[in-house]
């Protein structure tokens, strides 16, 4: 009787992994709220501009930590950037991540989204070798590039289920290796069940980021992340940095200001007259 119970239990443990391993990818970006424009050249003055963790990525961090808190496991935070991006890793630790890895090398500099997703996915492969990864989380997009391509790029390269614009994680079933999420679409929400390992990019509305505890802040203050450079990763040099980046920026410009709308006045006119006026205008402008 008792033996039988233990057998069932053993089988259960084998089937059901009790812990999750979540990798969160974050990016350090210039704090554009503090941006100054050079009055002469009309370009962004980057010098002395403080850096922050990309605001969407903060929600990715938060979601990673929440999932860990609910399902158990561990969160590893990953960033590619200059050596100073260590600060971003430390911020991840202060939000409750357990480990951080900084991918930094001059050879990575100038990488576009294609090259960046290559570097990140190779790093995730390596993390996965040590400890199997179940879920990768990225922010929806970065505020300095706005492309929203890196997350999907990683999913594609690693053959992960791709869940973009996630606004809610409904449930995770570790036994079945599947998760159900809600995606934010332009005209509503889509509920998707996906197999894990998966990659999701999150929108800001997915959660409210927490105010980190003092002990996490103290832990983060002196945290030294593992540093992986080209020597450690041994990447294909034709796929990284400027050489591995087919994207070129032709021109950066401010979008033309929106033209003011036209207001139809109804002073002293009946609604019928106003409606007729409106109709005429709409036809004139070929709206209808």
């Amino acid at each position, binding site marked *: 009787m008792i033996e039988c119970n233990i057998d069932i239990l053993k089988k259960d443990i084998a089937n059901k992994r009790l812990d999750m391993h979540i990798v969160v990818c974050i990016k350090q970006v210039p704090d554009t709220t503090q941006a100054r424009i050079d*009055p002469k050249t009309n370009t962004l003055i980057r010098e002395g501009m*403080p850096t*922050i963790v990309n605001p969407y990525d903060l929600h990715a961090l938060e979601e990673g930590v929440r999932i860990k808190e609910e399902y158990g496991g561990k969160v590893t935070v990953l960033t590619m950037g200059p050596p100073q991006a260590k600060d971003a890793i430390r911020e991840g630790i202060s939000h409750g991540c357990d480990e951080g890895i900084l991918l930094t090398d001059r050879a990575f500099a100038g990488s576009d989204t294609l090259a960046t997703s290559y570097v990140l996915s190779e790093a995730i492969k390596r993390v996965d070798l040590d400890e199997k990864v179940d879920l990768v989380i990225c922010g929806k997009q970065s505020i300095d590039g706005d492309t929203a391509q890196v997350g999907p790029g990683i999913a594609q390269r690693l053959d992960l289920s791709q869940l973009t614009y996630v606004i809610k994680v409904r449930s995770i079933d570790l036994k079945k290796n599947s998760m159900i999420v809600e995606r934010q679409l332009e005209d509503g929400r889509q509920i998707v069940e996906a197999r894990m390992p998966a990659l999701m990019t999150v929108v800001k509305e997915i959660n409210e980021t927490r*105010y980190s*505890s*003092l*002990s996490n*802040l*103290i832990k983060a*203050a002196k945290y030294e992340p593992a540093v992986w450079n080209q020597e450690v990763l041994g990447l294909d040099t034709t796929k990284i940095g400027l050489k591995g980046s087919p994207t070129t920026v032709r021109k950066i410009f401010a979008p033309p200001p929106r033209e003011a709308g036209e207001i139809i006045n109804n002073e002293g006119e009946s609604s019928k007259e106003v409606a007729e006026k409106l109709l005429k205008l709409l036809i004139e402008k070929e709206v209808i």
Partner: protein
Amino acid sequence: MPDIKDMNKFDAIIVGAGPAGTSCAHTVAKAGLKVALVDRGTFPGAKNVMGGVLYRHAVENAIPDFWKEAPLERHIIEQQYWLLSDDSNISIGHRSEKFAQEPYNRFTVLRAKFDSWFAGQADSAGAYIISKTVVDDVITENGRVVGIKTDRPDGNLYANVIVLCDGVNSLLAQKLGMRGEFDNRHLALAVKEIISMPREKIEDRFNLDGDEGATIDIYGEVAQGMEGTGFIYTNKDSLSVGIGVILADLVKTRVRPYDLLEQMKNHPVIKRMISGGEPREYMAHMIPEGGYKAMPKIYGDGVLVAGDAAMMVNGFHREGSNLAMTSGRLAGKTIIEATEKGDYSKNALSRYKDLLEDSFVLKDLKKYKNLPAHISNYSEFFSTYPEILNKAADEFLTIDGVSKKEKQRKIRKILTEKKSLWNIIKDTYKSWRAFG
């Protein structure tokens, strides 16, 4: 469950990452002690405001050869003093080639950049830098200060010594009863603008080469009869332009600080200096100018106070950052000695006062101890004197066919019209005494 109290126990906690706090944390960390530097800014220095001139000696004591790597704006080779009337100006200046060479003498800085670099040095020395965290209160046990209460979840932190470097508004020193209510005669409100200007224009206008810089301190008309002074400092590609006046005067005259700065910028003489520039940042901050007599208690059981929080500003010489850094460093030294002895009592920490007495900090503050009150009584120094001196100079320099003898008589009349000769002599004598 590990005891939070133990996990978060430090040798020292420093509140405030300005020059005082960072210098203290740097000193303590270098000695291998566990120290936390807590600041409310998004990064150290984020909100800090200063003219600002940084003096070499104080920084050098912490970091030798800092000018080779610190984010400084310009090294000052010329200092001018201007006495303004409503349409004219007397200037005295000093320029030295010696100051154009390393190790230099003083530097202009933008504090947001400098402070975060300086905190980085403390970080490398081993200090725990905790930003974006407000210290709400000090924790005491049986009359001893034992820790701080922050606005973070599980936000209490404990240490053998807490150093209050929370600046001019030190609410913490007030909560501990180490100082009384604010006296608005002891506080100056300074408003300042950073005005962008191309490097070449600055260098042409101020007659500078490369990273050389100049400062102008301005007395007279700009303060609109109140006790106060203005300044123009050169940065790399901007000017710091500002004015500080005693708060009590502002309250009395109801002049709005921003208007004061606008009027100063519109003064014909100053307008020329800043023309072609684009204002890019505006800030306001208090300066504690009460001097030695207005200082709070600076040590207690488990607690020390340094920098602006301790009123350590030499208003006359516009020195604050250097007194802050030096007092912070000496507070650090006191903590190191106390840790060796394992004694953090008020008595042991009184060593801080002795160290300060031996340094320029208390020597200078004592020397000028009568100056703040003296100047308050003689606001004419900021209005009448600049005006009559300018008039006299106008007269002296205007060649209009009037005989020199007649000129002298006229000048004497200008000088004594608003003040009797006897009063001028008395003012001069008293002022001389006030300077110690």
